[in-house]
């Protein structure tokens, strides 16, 4: 969707998430909401109507009793690099892959709210504003000025904290540089993760943590076979955990009411 670019440095921002470190504390989810002005849940919101750009799922190995083991899997927009499913379905160019960063951007101001992109996303990483955003009286004072609140009726999703990218760009410009230095820009979830399970960097920079993680034998991406080349790498030394990347298993008849 974008025309020519200056020979700016082309980045491919990506993430690595170490599932062996994630405690499921939810700090990333909360930090994300704070950073991106996502309102608290409307009273009618449920886990299926909520807005959680990053959402931590509790996944178990399907065993019963003491054999049951769980892992926490943070899922955010996987920033697909090829055949990005949501981009070419949007009827009005409200979704695009920024060629300079590889970030899949969603423009709430352009969005019609048709939700076709949500149907297209295999990761369910897109969220619809079912309600107008509402903060308790006074709490709007704590909104982040770098991110515009979205209105009801549009889709939104993780954009690697684009406000922070803007800020980093501006800081670089103030220093007279046109490029962001490695580490000068990290999304809020990365910064907030108390265990450092989430790492962020430029996949083109071989020294960056995600790039290193991408080459690790214990790394995997979700639904890799779809061929969408997601840029979020998960990592776990546990074999069964790596199975979460695969397609769902048919139900065993018992449903957990949670998670």
């Amino acid at each position: 969707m974008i025309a020519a670019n200056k020979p700016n440095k082309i980045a491919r921002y990506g993430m690595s998430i170490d599932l062996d470190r994630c405690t499921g504390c939810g700090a990333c989810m909360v930090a994300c909401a704070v950073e991106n002005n996502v309102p608290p849940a409307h009273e009618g919101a449920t886990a299926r109507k909520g807005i959680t750009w990053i959402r931590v799922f509790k996944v178990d190995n399907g065993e019963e009793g003491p054999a049951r083991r769980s892992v926490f899997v943070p899922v955010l927009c996987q920033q697909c690099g090829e055949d990005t499913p949501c981009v070419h379905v949007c009827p009005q160019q409200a979704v695009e892959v920024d060629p300079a960063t590889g970030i899949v951007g969603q423009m709430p101001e352009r969005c019609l709210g048709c939700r076709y992109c949500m149907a297209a996303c295999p990761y369910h990483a897109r969220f619809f504003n079912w309600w107008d955003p509402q903060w308790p009286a006074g709490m709007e004072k704590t909104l982040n000025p770098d991110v515009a609140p979205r209105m009801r009726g549009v889709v939104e999703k993780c954009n690697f904290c684009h406000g922070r990218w803007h800020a980093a760009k501006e800081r670089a410009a103030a220093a007279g540089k046109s490029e962001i230095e490695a580490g000068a820009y990290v999304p809020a979830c990365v910064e907030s993760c108390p265990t450092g399970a989430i790492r962020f960097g430029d996949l083109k920079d071989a020294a960056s943590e995600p790039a290193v993680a991408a080459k690790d034998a214990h790394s995997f991406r979700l639904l890799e076979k779809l061929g969408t080349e997601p840029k979020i790498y998960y990592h776990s030394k546990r074999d069964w955990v790596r199975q979460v990347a695969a397609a769902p298993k048919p139900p065993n008849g018992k449903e957990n009411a949670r998670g």
Partner: protein
Amino acid sequence: MPFLAGALAALGAGWVGFPHAIYKSRPQPVDFSHKVHAEKAGTKCEDCHAFREDGTFAGIPSLSTCAACHAAPMGTTAAEKNFIDAYVTPNREPDWASYAQQPENVFFSHITHVKLGQLKCEQCHGDQGASDKLRPYQVDRISGYSRDIWGRTLFQSKAAGAVPGMKMDDCVDCHRKQGLSHSCLDCHK
């Protein structure tokens, strides 16, 4: 014949009446002359419209900047007296309206354009700095956006010599000419 009359009436209303009706206008709180200040206070825009240390743009100067000189009346004009009485003495920030205020969803970095892009202030803001009077601030009644960024007439922004507009199209035009990237989230937030 009635058809023509109807068409003419609509044309008149649409071209003359409507542009007036769509904007709400309010005067600036203080009778301020850029020209006078440029002569007496500072020659460069940055003298008052300064950058902060971290590179962000402070925009319209706060009262403290004004009060640095205007602690006491510097002239005898009514406007001066009014300014001192209404704002400086009670230490109340004037409710300036920014003509160039971009919508909430726009990210604009002054320092990037000034420092990296080497743009002159006039390139976007026109000769505001040489004006003797502040024109009233006009705002679109429905969209709530300043007329300066949303409501130049169709032809004005493209006409030679006119102040470049501050609509998205104008930004994109320039970026395109410079061969700069312009993905949506480059400028939107």
